[in-house]
């Protein structure tokens, strides 16, 4: 019924880390929610269902809690319905998650022989003698990754997460996506067991694509929560990179390397949970103080809400993988595992890996740009709107939530060895190989297990940085320099909110560089002073980017359904008052087909009779054109 092995406990721990600060935050947020009982009910059952999925010991329980998780999160998105967009987003989300559920269902039905109460070990034996294991794998991937939000099933994230109340979006992005990762671990190891090389490559490619696509669309966003949601896609991609490498290595029987990569994936899972929750909380507090999600309306908030600002800064540094933060460490590990594959000789694999190295590197650069944009535009400079002007620091509980979560981030940075031990024990259970001794000979430095691998020592880096800063500061103090405070120099004009850069402007160069991907539709109108081309009193410029996949896959399928349904509808209405004729033909065709397929079959009679059938349909059913 229920299962408490290391993997489950690990993810329970993850949920715990994520939920405890979120509780504080959520209770701070509560006064602004109208349907409190509704909210709390669904909030807690959401958490409960996530726990349930993680500890589920058989298919029935797993599927039940999985669907419950979707249900409650969907209801939570609908907590505060402000406008149509919320409803649309919720619907879309629920449809997508149901779509994924469908494939999970198929997966389980195949591996359980229809008896849904059997445990994973027995499933493994059934799965191993199933004829098409790759089919199983595809079902699992489709089912889980549509929840995890990996390309191409990622489209719902930027809609669903922004519409949910902020604590919930923190939970969804921070933890729910990781539940899918848990599923990936559970299915690959406990049910599928062994896998060919290609599966790993598939996961690797999906990861690389997701990371790139996620960060690119994040850059083009102005809605702060949608931007963060896009970053979740990116980070899921990074996790999948690690996971894919792990699968590849283990299918090549390089156990230590594969364990290293899996540990990297787990570590990044934890890191992403921590800083993405923190970011969503920060974004939520900002949104909650300014009542707008549009970044162009923010600015200068660091003065009015310092705590939010600095926790947000910490999270942004961590998510942009800058040393010595935890985000940096996990990405470092993933890089090491990618580079460490130099001993392999398989050309497709090599190409895939070098592509993902490139993707990961590019992702890092773009992520930095993106978070400079978010932090700078949101918190620095002058406020760009009255909403931002009247913003205050959020209440105590929310502050506590954010601080606790930032403590989690810091702990992941400082107590890496401890976490590593945990991951290692989990991997030891799954892969039967323990590499803790190799990666942490001493608690100071983190060694890569790749041949001639590098070493990084977060603590030394941190200590060094702090020491140097202190030294410099001491110099500064010792010089006791006079200070004068005056306006920023703006070439003689006076500095106003209007003179600052906007988020759109900031992303401008990059958007222009990737315009082949975005093909953005730009709106630019200005009131020119009569005659002049260049002189104008007022101008406004706005850019909207519609993601590629949405344009192609999703809109396309909707069109298709509409078309089919239109024809079916016509057919159905055509039937009016022709019932007798229809039944008549039905009867004929049944007699006919039984005679043909059951009694005796030869092509000549078949053709002849089908012609007769068609005639009868024409004459009796369709009749003459009027």
């Amino acid at each position, binding site marked *: 019924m229920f299962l408490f092995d290391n993997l489950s406990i690990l993810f329970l721990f993850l949920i715990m880390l994520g939920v405890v600060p979120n509780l504080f935050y959520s209770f701070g947020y509560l006064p602004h929610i109208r349907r409190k009982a509704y909210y709390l009910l669904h909030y807690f059952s959401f958490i409960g269902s996530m726990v349930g999925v993680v500890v589920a010991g058989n298919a029935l329980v797993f599927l039940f809690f999985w669907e419950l998780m979707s249900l409650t999160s969907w209801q939570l998105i609908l907590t505060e319905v402000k406008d149509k967009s919320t409803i649309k987003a919720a619907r879309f989300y629920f449809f997508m998650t149901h779509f994924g559920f469908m494939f999970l269902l198929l997966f389980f039905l195949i591996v359980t022989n229809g008896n849904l109460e059997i445990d994973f070990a027995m499933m493994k034996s059934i799965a191993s003698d199933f004829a098409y294991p790759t089919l199983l794998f595809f079902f699992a991937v489709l089912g889980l990754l549509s929840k995890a939000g990996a390309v191409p099933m990622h489209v719902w994230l930027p809609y669903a997460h922004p519409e949910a109340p902020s604590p919930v979006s923190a939970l969804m992005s921070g933890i729910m996506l990781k539940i899918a990762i848990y599923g990936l671990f559970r299915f690959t190891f406990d049910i599928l067991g062994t896998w060919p090389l290609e599966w790993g490559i598939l996961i690797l490619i999906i990861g690389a694509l997701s990371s790139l696509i996620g960060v690119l669309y994040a850059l083009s966003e102005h809605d702060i929560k949608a931007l963060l949601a896009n970053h979740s896609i990116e980070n899921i991609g990074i996790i999948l990179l690690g996971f894919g490498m792990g699968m590849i290595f283990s299918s090549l029987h390089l156990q230590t390397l594969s364990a290293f990569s899996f540990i990297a994936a787990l570590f990044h899972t934890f890191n992403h949970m921590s800083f993405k929750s923190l970011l969503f909380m920060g974004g939520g507090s900002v949104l909650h103080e300014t009542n707008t999600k549009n970044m162009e309306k923010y600015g200068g908030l660091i003065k009015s809400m310092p705590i939010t600002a600095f926790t947000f800064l910490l999270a942004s540094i961590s998510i*942009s993988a*800058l040393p010595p933060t935890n985000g940096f460490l996990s990405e470092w590990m993933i890089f090491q595992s990618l580079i460490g594959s130099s001993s392999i000789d398989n050309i497709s694999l090599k190409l895939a890996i070098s592509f993902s190295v490139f993707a990961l590197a590019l992702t890092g650069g773009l992520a930095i740009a993106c978070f400079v944009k978010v932090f700078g535009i949101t918190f*620095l400079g002058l406020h760009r709107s009255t909403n931002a002007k009247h913003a205050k620091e959020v209440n105590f509980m929310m502050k506590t939530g954010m601080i606790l979560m930032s403590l989690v981030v810091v702990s992941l940075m400082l107590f890496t060895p401890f976490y590593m031990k945990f991951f290692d024990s989990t991997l030891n259970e799954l892969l039967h190989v323990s590499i803790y001794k190799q990666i942490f000979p001493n608690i100071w430095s983190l060694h890569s297990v790749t041949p001639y691998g590098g*070493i*990084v020592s977060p603590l030394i880096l941190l200590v060094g940085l702090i020491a*140097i800063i202190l030294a*410099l500061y001491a110099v500064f103090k010792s010089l006791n320099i006079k200070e004068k405070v005056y306006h920023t120099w703006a070439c003689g004009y006076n500095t106003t909110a209007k003179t600052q850069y906007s988020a759109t402007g900031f992303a401008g160069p990059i958007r222009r560089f990737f315009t082949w991907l975005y093909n953005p539709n730009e709106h630019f109108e200005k009131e020119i002073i009569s005659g002049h081309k260049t002189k104008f009193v007022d101008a406004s410029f706005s850019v909207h980017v519609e993601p590629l996949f949405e344009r192609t896959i999703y809109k396309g399928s909707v069109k298709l359904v509409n078309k089919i349904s239109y024809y079916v509808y016509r057919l159905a209405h055509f039937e009016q008052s022709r019932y007798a004729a229809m039944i008549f033909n039905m009867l004929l065709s049944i007699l006919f087909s039984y005679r043909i397929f059951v009694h005796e079959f030869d092509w000549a009679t078949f053709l002849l009779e089908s012609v007769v059938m068609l005639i009868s349909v024409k004459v009796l059913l369709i009749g003459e054109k009027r």
Partner: protein
Amino acid sequence: MIVYGLTIILLIFLSPLVTSFIKMIKMYLLYKKPIPIFQGYRDFSKLLSKEMIISKETSSITRIAPYLVLSPLLLILFFLPPIAGGEYYVSFIDAFTITGLISLSTFFLMILGLDSASSFGGLGSSREAFISALVEPAMILALFSVSMMGNNLGLGQASVNLNNDFPYAHMASYLFAAISFFILLIAENGRIPVDNPETHLELTMVHEAMILDLSGFYLMLIESAGSIKFMIFASIFASLFMPFGLHLPIFLGIIVFVLKIFFIAILVSLLEVNTAKLRLFKVPNLLGIAIVFAFLSLITFYVLGA
């Protein structure tokens, strides 16, 4: 160990000298009256003694960021490949860490630009974000491929290995890496053709625009950060792409190293004199070349093994 400390101090003190040396050569080539080579030290001392004007619009970031711009770079100095043979050096720090530290300082520089609500700051950091977003992957790829040629992901160890047995087998990818890294050296340190450190014209400014509102001590921090950054790139280039001279006795080795640095400086200044500043949206072409070469070198080494 002592020599290790000394080399770091040497690098720190050398860095202003090199920057002003470049400037000097440029002015000489442009038939101007060259500045004295110690101009850099003078500027710093002047800035130290000056009073600071803090902008009203800025926040506490302005007081924090300058330190965080400088300190990662100072930290990198400790991890650089050895200057001369037979002494202590940090062998294990790899390309990703170093790039990360550089990005850390860039991150805070960009934030600093956005902090003072001036349009220049935003402009500068936007452009910087654009450039560094393209620079970082190229740098990671190039350094990784070189360090893999050196049979060790730790840069220091890799440079030593390169010294001991030069990878003639992988000459092609080595060359690609060298080219791309040199382009990065120019781009990241805001030299012509990517950026023009002299002018303060908003068409050309990238680096200068971000620090327009700083003065005194903070400005000094940023400026020194700039010169130290150049130093870092130069020395990495020197020890990875000119891998010789570690077998010489220490002091000779150090002299050779310094000569390498100055040689790179001369190269840069010649390039600066002979090219014009690129338009911002032409910059990607240059960086694109860098990325392509870095990627090529990785592929050629990694897939083809050439």
